[in-house]
């Protein structure tokens, strides 16, 4: 067989951000018309790889990369996204790059509008040439035709279903004259199944037109359906590159998740049967930007630690935020048999929920206040505690506040100069411990903890995880533990619900296999 030159070759790519190796020795070759899947968990290095390919400023400003990029067999140095586009590389981003009030046609030709002379340009010069709306329509129609999509170029994109927005994005890239490689970043992440299918068919069609497609996705089903070749990245390493014909969905899932596990929590599973239901969630929908929940049913048993896992953007964070009423929420939640008033943080706290938010800096604490005040304020406000009362006058019981704070500082090993230290001067891990103490002081029946180990070092991480387990054992409080790190979920949880596409994909025991977790996360 004659040698075909790959459209794009990336050879031995490496990249470090301030000494932290995020990509190491990653290589891939994409042939003309090939559908090439790139998959891996969040943080596996997919976006860094794309940033390198597009010459994004983040790369050059942090010391560039190592390795070679070849387009059509020739080595290139791409310094700006425009250069990548000039080489014929198009990219459809995960978030839509569409102007909401514009029509389909206007969006396809955005900033590449065909122009013609008009009255104003004759007087004031070229800058005021008229946009040729008829030509826009014709060009747009031609591009949409090539995709095989029936769509009116006059339609306002805002009114289109999400799936069609994706088509417009692809049509725009196709309209750029010389596209030979199209990168699609999780094109089906926000689509319904039927729409996703059409997108996949479009991908196949593009490949028949001779355009190579680099498909970034974690949906294993899609990879099996469309791709010719798959490369799995994990922790910045090229784990494996395989022909789809030679592999199985199970193998891909295992390679994607697989890492050595620390001790998985062992519990007598019969114990969790026949237990009282603490929180029952029915058809929960939460409109949290970027973490939309679209219909979750879940029972949380009294006294258990229920983990909520899944990939970023799939909606796992929306569950706790919805229960606390922080984002617009619909559906039904009952707490120990009593219905909970939705969209009201106050009534959620009244129902004895306490929340350690994933957004530590914004919602977790008041940075300028002392450790002790941060810990006790919610209890003061909601339970009227830590006060000395003189008739109508209340005074803060400073002694009690200080004692309580000292107790938790010791118990959680918070590194500080004393209870009066400002929280903003603590390290991330110690701030997180303050947040947990604060939540516990509310004496909750159900504790919601979201991403407690995000952005803190390993030592602090294990203390936080230990603390969560211990609180659960000692006080019997029910815990809903949301985390994007599967490892830590498996360490502390009794059951783990994997959220994908805003719904619960599966509920697994912590000792389930990597393959099972991988498939659930991949939405299959």
């Amino acid at each position, binding site marked *: 067989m004659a040698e075909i030159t790959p459209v794009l070759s990336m050879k031995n790519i490496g990249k470090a951000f301030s000494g932290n190796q995020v990509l190491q020795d990653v290589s891939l070759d994409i042939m003309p018309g090939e559908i090439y899947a790139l998959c891996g968990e969040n943080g596996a290095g997919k976006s860094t790889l794309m940033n390198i390919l597009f010459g994004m400023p983040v790369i050059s400003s942090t010391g560039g990369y190592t390795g070679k990029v070849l387009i059509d067999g020739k080595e290139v140095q791409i310094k700006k996204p*425009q250069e990548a586009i000039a080489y014929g590389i198009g990219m459809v981003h995960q978030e839509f*790059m*569409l*102007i*909401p*009030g*514009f029509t389909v046609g*206007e969006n396809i030709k*955005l*900033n590449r*509008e065909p*122009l013609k002379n*008009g*009255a*104003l*340009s004759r007087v004031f010069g070229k*800058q*005021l*040439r*008229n*946009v040729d*709306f008829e030509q826009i329509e014709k060009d747009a129609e031609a591009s949409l035709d090539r995709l095989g999509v029936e769509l009116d170029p006059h339609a306002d994109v805002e009114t289109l279903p999400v799936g069609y927005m994706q088509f417009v994005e692809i049509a725009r890239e196709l309209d750029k004259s010389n596209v030979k490689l199209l990168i699609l970043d999780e094109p089906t992440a926000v689509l319904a199944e039927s729409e996703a299918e059409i997108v996949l068919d479009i991908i196949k069609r593009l490949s028949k037109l001779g355009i190579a497609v680099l498909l970034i996705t974690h949906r294993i089903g899609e990879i099996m359906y469309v791709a010719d070749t798959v490369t799995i990245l994990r922790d910045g390493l090229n784990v494996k590159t395989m022909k789809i014909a030679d592999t199985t969905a199970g193998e891909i899932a295992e390679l994607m998740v697989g890492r050595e596990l620390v001790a998985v929590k062992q519990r007598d599973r019969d114990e969790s049967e026949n237990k009282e239901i603490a929180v029952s969630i029915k058809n929960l*929908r939460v*409109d949290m930007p970027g973490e*939309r929940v*679209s219909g979750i049913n879940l029972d949380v048993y009294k006294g258990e630690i229920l983990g909520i896992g899944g990939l970023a953007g799939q909606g796992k964070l929306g569950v706790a935020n919805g229960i606390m009423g922080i984002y*617009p929420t*619909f559906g039904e939640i009952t707490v120990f048999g009593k219905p909970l008033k939705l969209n009201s943080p106050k009534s959620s706290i009244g129902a004895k929920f306490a929340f350690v938010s994933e957004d530590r800096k914004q919602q977790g604490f008041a940075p300028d206040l002392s450790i002790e005040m941060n810990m006790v304020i919610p209890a003061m406000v909601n339970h009227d505690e830590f006060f000395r009362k003189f008739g109508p006058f209340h005074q803060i019981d400073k002694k009690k506040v200080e004692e309580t704070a000292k107790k938790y500082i010791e118990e959680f090993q918070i590194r500080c100069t004393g209870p009066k230290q400002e929280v903003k001067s603590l390290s991330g891990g110690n701030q997180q411990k303050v947040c947990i103490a604060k939540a516990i002081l509310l004496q909750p029946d159900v504790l919601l903890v979201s991403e407690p180990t995000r952005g803190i070092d390993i030592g602090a991480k294990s203390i936080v995880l230990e603390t969560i387990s211990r609180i659960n054992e000692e006080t019997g409080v029910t815990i809903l533990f949301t985390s994007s790190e599967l490892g830590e979920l498996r360490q502390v949880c009794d059951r783990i619900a994997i959220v994908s596409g805003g719904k619960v994909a599966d509920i697994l025991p912590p000792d389930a296999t990597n393959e099972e977790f991988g498939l659930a996360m991949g939405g299959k």
Partner: protein
Amino acid sequence: MGKNGKVRGFLGKNIVPLLFACFCAVGVYYSGTGIPTILSDLVNRFDRNALLVLSLILPVISGMGLNFGIVLGAMSGQVGLILVSIWKIQGLPAILIAMLIAMVVASFCGFLAGKMLNQTKGQEMITSMILGFFANGIYQFIFLFIAGGVIKFSSDLLLSSGIGIKNTIALDSMQYALDDIKIFGVSTKVDLFTAMMFFGALFLLYYLFRVLVKKNREKKYRIRLGISAALIVAGAVGYNLPALVMYKMMVRVPIPTYLVIIGVCILIQAFMKTKLGQDMRAVGHDRKVAASAGIRVDKVRIQAIILSTVIAALGQIIFYQNLGTMDTYYGHEKVGTYCVAAILIGGASVQKATIGQAILGTLLFHLLFNVSPLAAQNMFSNSMVGGYFRMVACYGIIAVALILHAWRSRVDRKKKSEEV
């Protein structure tokens, strides 16, 4: 959507103008003033303010909100008027030269304002408002101190001490210089019915051109053709109807200024079809997406502010040529607030504004502004209330309109998230 839903949709979309139209009707009724008097005043007020309100459109389209910074444009206009007064130029040439000067000054001010607003994206409205106050300080410094104090010259515009420009400047020679251009000695400020026939004929010719030459056979053009013809007929009937003689006598329409206003509307409309106009729309809808498509967002925004400031400058000159005396230090101060109130009443919002809304808003606002003091006085039988009422009407409008818009967008958002 059923017919009921359609009606509700229409009511919801136009709730602000409808509400204020009701206020206007009540105001007209209680003011006890005759319709011809009110109409005559309204025709003049529209003539004075239309351009100033129109100047707000482009920044809204570019996503920069309501540009309170048109105060800068108003100041530029006054700079032009002060200079031509010092140079003792008279009549229409004075107006035209003042406009030229004002356009240069306004372009410069608009450029600086645009630069500044680019540093404060997302807070353009409050920034442009404060910018107006700040520029007012510089303006006063220049005309109270530099003029005569540093740059020595003699002019009867200077205060008796020889330093600083007088508080009020009489623009006698310039009054009505544009409103009433004499063509071969014939006045172009005509009665209501002649004006109706004139503009009717103008529109009729335009739409005939569209339908016959450009072959736009759409329904809306045929309807507009009909309306133009009806306008001519109504004008002709009114002209000859003795019952309407009060209207004929009292209401005088300044044709040339109205032509200028129509001209600016057409220019804005044509401008929106150009590449630059398209870029402004893109930037206004989504800055990030526009930038990622390679549109130079900052430059487009500066251009929008420059154009807005220039139109406002022309507007302020037209304002004073109609009024005849210029208030040197306070004339520009409230321009921003009044015009914003006007366009909001017309149904515009921080995100969306059209020429139609600007025109409707100018009419409603100034009708209310005109009748509210008298109406209040009559309703509460207390002459003190009238003046206050006007203030309440003006600032209340801004608050109510903004609240109604916020309420509407919340309803829309809720509907949207319920669909999910």
